[in-house]
């Protein structure tokens, strides 16, 4: 088991390293570099080679590629991701501030998804093929198709139109600074993203429950005369939830993808919002930093999820 963890962790480091190298090269070998934009923006008509050279020199982009790469990698090991081209602040520092809202949003969405999906999935399965089941499944199909950003826009629209309320967009406060203000900014994106993921989890949980409910040990539980609540929650649900956990871990990538859009829409100052801005401004160090953080976070969370299987299901052994 320990050996397995170490091997997976090392493999993950290798994968992340490959990705970051690809990003480094990709950003520098393709047209549209920051110098062109910067030189052009400051002196629109005179974005001459000379002006570009000055900007390139300031940012260290005129150094030979291997040297840039070496500085980048050695900085990485010291926890230094370089400075942002635009704000001149260290990327590490900026990322630290932006990580908390993104993680909070992700957790809130998964929480919303589970709160919606688990009860609905269970009811839909134990009342299979009744009108209630059909209504709940239609509900899931609908939420699966509506893009989360459209749900977000519709939520904003209806609240502004009929409740004359819109979320505080400026002066974002962290959860621990001002929980009330933070929740006002967070609950809409959490709802919009959570419902979409919830629909996927619900469909999957339903089919898992249907399978588990037909197994022998569940029939034994029924014939012992247990109440429905005990059979469903204590016997069936526990086993149906293990594969659901896999789906949730697979959905993390979807969550990260979706939140790039939702953070931009709701102006949540997380890493998704940050990276979209950075891309528009050709801010290489920021793009590199965000890609590194997202990739690392994702592969290690996946590892963590694999670990929890062994804990949840003692039959699973990693060798």
């Amino acid at each position, binding site marked *: 088991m320990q050996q397995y963890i170490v091997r997976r962790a090392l493999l993950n480091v290798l994968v992340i390293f490959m*990705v970051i190298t690809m990003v480094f090269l990709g950003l520098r070998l393709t047209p549209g570099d920051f110098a062109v934009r910067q030189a052009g923006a400051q002196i629109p008509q005179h974005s001459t080679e000379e002006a570009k050279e000055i900007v390139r020199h300031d940012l260290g982009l005129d150094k030979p590629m291997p040297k840039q790469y070496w500085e980048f990698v050695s900085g990485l090991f010291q926890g230094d991701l370089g400075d942002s081209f635009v704000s001149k602040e260290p990327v590490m520092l900026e990322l630290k501030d932006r990580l908390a809202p993104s993680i909070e949003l992700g957790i809130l969405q998964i929480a919303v998804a589970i709160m919606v999906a688990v009860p609905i999935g269970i009811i839909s399965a134990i009342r299979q093929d009744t009108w209630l089941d059909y209504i709940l499944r239609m509900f899931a199909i609908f939420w699966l198709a509506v893009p989360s950003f459209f749900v977000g826009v519709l939520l904003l629209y209806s609240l502004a139109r009929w409740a004359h309320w819109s979320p505080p967009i400026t002066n974002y406060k962290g959860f621990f600074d001002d929980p009330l203000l933070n929740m006002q900014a967070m609950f809409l994106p959490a709802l919009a993203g959570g419902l979409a993921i919830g629909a996927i989890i619900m469909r999957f949980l339903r089919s898992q429950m249907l399978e588990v409910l037909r197994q022998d040990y569940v029939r034994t539980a029924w014939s012992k005369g247990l109440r429905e609540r005990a059979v469903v929650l204590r016997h069936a649900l526990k086993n149906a939830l293990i594969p659901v956990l896999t789906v949730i871990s697979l959905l993390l990538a979807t969550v990260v993808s979706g939140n790039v859009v939702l953070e931009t829409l709701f102006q949540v100052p997380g890493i998704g919002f940050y990276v979209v801005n950075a891309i528009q401004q050709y801010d290489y160090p920021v793009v590199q930093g965000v890609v590194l953080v997202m990739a690392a976070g994702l592969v290690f969370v996946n590892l963590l999820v694999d670990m929890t299987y062994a804990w949840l299901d003692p039959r699973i052994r990693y060798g």
Partner: protein
Amino acid sequence: MLAGQERAEVEVLAVAEELAQPQRPGWLLLVGRFIWRKPLGAFGLAVVLLMAAAAAGAPWLCRYDAEETFRVANPSYVPGSAEPEEKLDSRSGPSWEHWFGTDQFGRDNYSRVVWGARRSLGVGLGALLFAIIFGTTIGIVSAYFRGWFDMLVQRVMDSIQAFPAMLILLLLVSLTERNLITLTMGLGFVVITAAQRIVRSAVLSAREDPHVEAARAIGCSPIRLMVVHILPNVAAPIIVIFSIGIASVILAEAALGFLGLAPIEPPSWGMMLDEGRRYMTSQPSTMLAGGAAITLTVMGFNLAGDALRDILDPRIRLS
């Protein structure tokens, strides 16, 4: 006597011949059965056909040019004043002239939705063709040769799949000139991993089939084996990948448009949603037209794809 017997014999034979004919139900009956058995799938297919018609017949179905700006008489114009006689007919609600209203530049929303179908479906079609050509090739070759080669290819695919699709797309739009062709290929690239995994598992079982073994025994070359004898076996999974994958590609393209990271021409539903939300409290028509078009199309492809999967190959699960 003899003649009567002969006639009877002929009649009996005719009946037998009729019975021996395989019962071929008329296509109308088949369509009817499909609608009866899979009402949701039929609804999805109808939506898909509608959108395909809009995409194919955009020049005839649109009522105006997508970029044409409309003007109306200015109500605050009085002869002799500095006010212009006409103003832009922008942000209008639905009317007979403009079924879905107009956007902030006075362009007809209905015509833009119709042209948007051509963009969305075109990008979806192109991306899926790209993904299927590469995914099928990789899947077949990987499964055919197995061993260390298969191992290597699958690990590379795993590491690509570990990344949020949105991250790959964001990198792509930040690295390259924004045009529809690179965008289409990028969207296709994201689907390759899932496509090749499904094709690979289908090939792994197909390559052990007696007819493939027979072909190998008579000395077919590996290429002939793969193309002539194995490829036809994976047709069903490929159709399923296509119908389900295209929905997620259309959604991703809309998300990029919504973020303002996609090329601005031809009209894009995602961009209509983004532009429309900026003035939705005064006039929601543009926002609703764009969002509803995305939702309806994604739902159509999802439902049609689910039904096709149930019919063609119930074992495949894409997500």
